[in-house]
């Protein structure tokens, strides 16, 4: 299989922070807003360099979303930063009316998404955010897989008009995508060609999918691995082309099965190209405290879970 090398683990949120600083330098209309989590969101460099364009709202996320929506009137490009939990559920109606329905150019940037937030536990481990955001008309939903891709995605959304939800995480995670690779919103990335099963993964789970692919290869199974960094709009063409070749699908995401990437792909397949699907995702459950790797294991999102799902779905194909 195509080899991917971890260039040194880094947190995806730091990719966001670095890109935000670059955007601050290159685009005077970029404004950053934060709800008392500047350090966690890696927004300190932007805040220190561009104090006039950094808006600290305090612990008041609803007001932050409203202010961001208002800033677009006058040509500003606001990037809001807080945890995924406070970026979505807490402010769903504000996003729905003032951002999505009003079609405002707000970039909602959400860190600490998913189980890998770790020890803080279920109150902070949002596993429903992709579903909530993808259901909103006008909303683009992006979940990059590593530091480099998060950085590239952050740069890309600044020049992409309209509401965007950008989701990333807390832990240090393998950084394996080439630095400086342009990020094309809505375009799935083929990471490994295969003919036996298509593995569509998003976010942190892309690395796990690659590790699973290697294990499957050792068993003589050729898995196609595709990074779906943009969950909405979904790259239907790339997904259907892969499934026409492999005839079965595994999806992998650090999210609830309901409403996640797997749900989007299953919908596409039942409409266009019916095929068996196994979903590696959290099954209707809240998370809990623990180390990221312990949680992924407990909730069935580990590498062996992807391998098992692949074997199961290949068996269903026959």
């Amino acid at each position, binding site marked *: 299989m195509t080899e991917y090398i971890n260039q040194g683990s880094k947190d995806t949120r730091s990719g966001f922070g670095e890109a935000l600083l670059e955007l601050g330098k290159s685009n005077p209309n970029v*404004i950053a807003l934060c709800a008392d989590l500047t350090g966690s969101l890696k927004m300190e460099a932007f805040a220190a360099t561009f104090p*006039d*364009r950094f*808006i600290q*709202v*305090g612990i*008041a996320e*609803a*007001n*932050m*979303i*409203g*202010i*961001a*929506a*208002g*800033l*677009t*009137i*006058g*040509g*500003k490009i*606001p990037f809001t930063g807080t945890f995924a939990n406070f970026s979505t559920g807490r402010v769903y*109606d*504000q996003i*729905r*009316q*003032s951002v999505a*329905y*009003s*079609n*405002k150019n707000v970039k909602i940037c959400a860190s600490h998404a998913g189980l890998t937030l770790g020890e803080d536990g279920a109150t902070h481990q949002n596993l429903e955010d992709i579903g909530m955001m993808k259901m909103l008309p006008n909303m683009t939903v992006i979940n990059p897989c590593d530091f480099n891709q998060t950085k590239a995605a952050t740069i890309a959304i600044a020049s992409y008009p309209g509401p965007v939800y950008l989701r990333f995480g807390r832990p240090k995670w393998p950084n394996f995508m080439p630095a400086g690779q342009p990020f094309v919103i809505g375009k799935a990335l083929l990471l490994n060609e295969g003919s036996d099963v298509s593995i569509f993964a998003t976010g942190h789970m892309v690395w796990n999918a690659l590790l699973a692919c290697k294990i499957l290869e050792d068993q003589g199974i050729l898995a196609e691995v595709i990074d779906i960094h943009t969950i909405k709009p979904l790259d239907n063409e790339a997904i259907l082309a892969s499934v026409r070749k492999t005839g079965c699908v595994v999806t992998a995401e650090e999210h609830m099965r309901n409403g996640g990437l797997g749900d989007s792909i299953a919908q596409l397949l039942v409409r266009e190209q019916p095929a068996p699907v196994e979903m590696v995702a959290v099954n209707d459950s809240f998370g809990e405290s623990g180390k990221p790797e312990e949680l992924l294991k407990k909730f069935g999102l580990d590498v062996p879970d992807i391998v098992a799902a692949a074997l199961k779905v290949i068996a269903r194909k026959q």
Partner: protein
Amino acid sequence: MLTVQELEKIASQVRRDIVRMVHGSSSGHPGGPLGSTDFLVALYFKIMKPDQKNFTMDGVGEDLFFLSNGHLSAGWYSVLARYGYFDVSELRTFRKLGSRLQGHPATSEGLPGIRMSSGSLGQGLSVSIGAALAKKLNHDEHLVYCLMGDGELQEGQNWEALMYAAGNKVDNMVAVVDYNGVQIDGPNDKVLPMGDLQAKFEAFGWQVMTMYGNDMTEVVETLKKAQWYTGQGKPLMILMTTHMGNGVDFMTDNYEWHGVFPNEEQTKTALAQLDETLGDY
């Protein structure tokens, strides 16, 4: 320059429009817009005077208005049409299928004059703060106006916004509360007493002015004065006392007219009390 008498004539026509629109669609909210008509007429025709022929979403170089209590849409649409943003004949499409005049204001239909959707309450003050901050960043010295309902103040987001604006000296904005004392389920004091609003705003660090919102002379004078109070490091709030349903005797101060449309007979009675000054749509 329009005189107070001329503004009052416009207001009378706007009130007729409101009654006819709500009757025409057999739905909508007559009470609130009738109470805030004088304010909206004065604001557009006398105070802001925005460029209605070249509407832009960014509104750079002109004053902006945001309606937070979006259910006052009938009155806002009428004022926008009478001011010349779009043809008054379009008012008859209010709340009907395919209309740009949605039940609550929407940007999705491209209606000139509207920069933000509203209807779900409590969001307009935050939006107005954002727009005011954009004006500061753009070195645009024009003001941002926001109208809110009093019942709407029960939404917690307003208090986040009030805190932010004072703490960050957002002083290029005028927020106006339509203080009619009633909401859907009854008087504010029965539904959820809000106490001394002026004291609360002042405690939050705002400058507060009061006015009676159903006297055109007072509205114009207060809004003129308010312009002078901006730019002094404090956000500005006008606590505007109004009568819900003002101009139509049987609707005045009756919370039951918050969201009920008048029937044929009631519409006739209401229109008999409101002079047709500019021609019905």
